[in-house]
């Protein structure tokens, strides 16, 4: 490769690093929070929505009683999904 082309390529690489860093950052969080268990992320968001509803329209007691049940149900569902996939 001629020296000029090499320099241009190096400059282009240097210019592109913020985008690559941003992409790597997004990729890390996607893998971290979703990865191969999207059902866990979705179920957690649904659980939080239900708890908000219970706190506002029913009672705090109902919310603290239901929250662990929903979390346990999510764990059971994702484990069973993992078993089927194995």
């Amino acid at each position, binding site marked *: 490769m001629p020296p000029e082309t090499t320099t241009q390529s190096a400059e282009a690489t240097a210019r592109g690093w913020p985008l690559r860093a941003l992409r790597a950052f997004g990729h890390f969080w996607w893998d971290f929070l979703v990865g191969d268990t999207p059902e866990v992320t979705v179920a*957690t968001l649904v659980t939080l929505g239900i708890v908000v509803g219970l706190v506002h329209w029913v009672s*705090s007691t109902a919310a603290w009683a239901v929250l662990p049940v929903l*979390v346990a149900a*999510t764990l059971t569902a994702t484990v069973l999904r*993992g078993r089927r996939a194995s």
Partner: protein
Amino acid sequence: MTSSQVVLVVAVFLASSVEMVEALTIVVAAGVSRGWRSALEGVAAALVLLGILVAALGPVLVKVPLNPLRVVIGGILLVFGLQWLRKAVLRATGYKAPHDEDVIYARTVEEMSQSGEVRAGRDPVGFAVAFKGTFLEGLEVVIVVLTLGATDHDVGLAALAALAAVVLVGLVGVVVARQLAGVPENTMKTAVGLMLVSFGSFWTGEGLGVHWPGSDLAIPVLVGVYGLVVGLLVVSLRRSRVAGGVHAS
């Protein structure tokens, strides 16, 4: 020390120990196959970068209003903890292959042996592998320290627990070199998963306006409840596996 702080210290210590064992496997493999100087420089560079991250993010997180912070961080802990528990249950019941440090060590050494000759002085391959291994595993420790520490407004205590784990696993690593497969990783992962899910439930609940009976004492109760669920899942999956004659993948 409150019950919340005790659970915080135990959770951070165990999580940091598990991640440190994984990082140590990669670093020892890099050191043995590509030379110790570059591997240790890679570790040092990763630790400096992680230190900068903690120093930059820690004070910012502590200043964020508590309830929104508890909901966001509690949600992250719930997802992260449920992922850990899922893997731990599947490994304990044979539906997922166990995390074998010896296999990872052998694979890393083989990959690096195929990466050309070792350069005299600083070896870029050994440096990069040790840096990446330490940084990625360390990043998980940083997330656990910052999230658990910030929601309890005790990042310092969480950081101390993580530091104790890093020092302990580092010392053990020096003594036993690469005999890391003996660490009961799945048991530790189960314990950490239980604590992350319990903290996650507690903080999201608090952030959303739930008043837990007994306040902080609800955390050990949640650990017990989720522990019971995990135990039941392990027993029932083992039974169904035996009944169905399924083999581990």
